């Protein structure tokens, strides 16, 4: 049986692997090669062009600040939600569904809604006006506020996923520990610090790495909310180079920089995962 099945198993690995190679890996490799191509010769010229472009540096900075902010917001929110939903008294089904909804909604739809809320004559400014305040330039290109809004919207979409992961992590904590802490007279904050947090760390680290890698690749959020030049990040920067400036080589150089960042994050994640014993985190 094992011998006969061996060919089949090899095919079952080879065909999907080949498929992935053709449509993901090969393009990535060819793109990498392209990034070193200047006029048909191997060169670092594209990278040098990047370093000389002020917009690139803004994009690089944005690609660090925005994911960081987004992660902070979404983890704070998700943890709070998970603690709330994971509490002994189960919240009503409507609340559970509502909490998951932002994840179920396609990202582009969420961004559309956000856009209609935050634009200068959008619903948020309308509400502010009605409340007696003054409208703000939420999405003003280049403003810090715009970056904050982008972070918030990005976080809003992904909070449910992180919440689910943390919720699953919370379920693995034996309730006896909470009872023991209560008997010892620990307050809510102390219980959190000494029981919940340490045992939640593997799930937290796992979720952080997973989300961190995704957050770095932010693309549509900035594109839809502020336009590519409003809150520049590396993906939109590369996109513009490709679609507007017709500069695929420099675009690929920028894309490679992003890929390098993501790989670094991924490797850091593996190392962190080993250290904190994060279980069930693939790669």
């Amino acid at each position, binding site marked *: *049986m*094992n*011998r*006969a099945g061996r060919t089949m198993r090899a095919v079952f690995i080879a065909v999907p692997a080949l498929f992935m190679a053709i449509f993901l890996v090969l393009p990535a490799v060819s793109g990498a090669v392209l990034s070193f191509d200047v006029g048909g010769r191997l060169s670092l010229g594209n990278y040098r062009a990047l370093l000389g472009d002020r917009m690139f540096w803004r994009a690089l900075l944005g690609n660090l600040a925005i994911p960081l902010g987004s992660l902070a917001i979404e983890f704070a929110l998700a943890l709070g939600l998970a603690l709330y939903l994971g509490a002994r008294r189960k919240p009503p089904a409507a609340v559970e569904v509502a909490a998951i909804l932002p994840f179920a909604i396609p990202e582009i739809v969420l961004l559309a809604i956000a856009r209609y809320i935050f634009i200068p004559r959008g619903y948020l400014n309308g509400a502010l006006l009605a409340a007696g305040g003054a409208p703000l330039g939420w999405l003003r290109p280049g403003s810090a506020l715009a970056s904050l809004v982008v972070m918030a919207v990005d976080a809003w979409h992904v909070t449910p996923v992180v919440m689910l992961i943390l919720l699953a992590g919370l379920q693995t904590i034996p309730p006896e520990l909470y009872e023991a802490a209560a008997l010892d007279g620990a307050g809510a904050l102390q219980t959190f610090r000494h029981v919940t947090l340490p045992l939640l760390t593997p799930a937290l680290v796992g979720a952080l790495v997973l989300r961190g890698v995704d957050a770095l690749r932010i693309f549509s959020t900035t594109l839809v909310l502020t336009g590519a030049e409003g809150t520049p990040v590396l993906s939109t920067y590369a996109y513009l180079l490709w679609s507007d400036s017709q500069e695929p080589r420099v675009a690929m150089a920028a894309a490679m920089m992003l890929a390098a960042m993501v790989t670094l994050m991924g490797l850091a994640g593996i190392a962190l995962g080993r250290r904190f014993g994060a279980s069930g985190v693939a790669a």
Partner: protein
Amino acid sequence: MSATREAAAAPVLRLRGVRRRFASGGGLDAIDLEIAAGEFFVLLGPSGCGKSTLLRLVAGLDTPQSGAIELGGRALGDGAGGRGEVAMVFQNFALYPHLSAFDNIAFPLRLRRMGSGEIARRVGAAAKMAGLDLDLGRRPHELSGGERQRVALARALVREPRVVLMDEPLSSLDPQLRQSLRVELKEFHRRTGRTFLYVTHDQTDALTLADRLAVMRAGRIEQVGTPAEVYDRPQTEFVARFVGEPAMNLVRVALAPKREALMLGDARVAVQPPSAVDSDVTLGMRPSDLSVSVSSPHKSPACAADAVEIPGEVEDAEFVGARYLVTVRVGASLSLKAESAERLEPTTPVMLAMRRARLHFFDPASGRRLE
């Protein structure tokens, strides 16, 4: 066994020098075995002895590293050849969970694209043979353990294989069920006359079911023979200990000077050892061969000519249902187990007796039987 079956006893399965070792330890070492057509052959041994490995090799689920396996005169090749002629009942039955009992049994036939009428007929026949008396539309998870076993059996039989392999099929059933299924299996073998190769660690299974059996240990066959042969004349200490319930008493005894008697501890027993023995020897006595009688100072023991007598004192008596298993202390440091119909109190002086012919002698170094 009927005369006709004995006449047709050409070996249907032959293993020669079969070897299959695993990196993790365990496996088989140079197995030679011949099984006749129509035999109910049992592979008996403790876990890890290689009996399941052997079964899987015959099934073609694994290939030997060296040696040859022949089924019906033809080599088993690389495993593909044996498939059609061999059927297996797995330990956990391995029924197809998403198929009904009927479809489970019909599966091998459907693979051969048999007509549905023919399939229905043969499934019905196999089910009847296996004693299945229920709605075959039910799924495995709706059946009891015994019913699942019968479905597995029916599935194995439906394609009329040359050899039916069984891998500890009764081990996951409760004792009562085991008992009744054992009887049924025996009956069943008699009716169908097929060759069965049955693997178990339970010596009761082996002794009641087998026409012949092989006792295995650590990848080797220690003895092959009929149940009577293996029980009455175990060839090695291991076989002596493993076969027979309760286990045989095996004690190391020294020779008295001039080979006139044996020293069981400091008790002197008037027995002459076999000629091959010239120093210490291991003596084997089955508890069921040792009779216990309360010795009284006034009674002069009526000693049969071939009887051996051992004086001792009761240490403990264990009730095992039909009788008592009595532990008797002999001398200062030896304990023997014997069977008694009545309960005996500790410290009661008793006399153990057994027939000389029922004694077993083994070489302490090699464990081999000495005659």
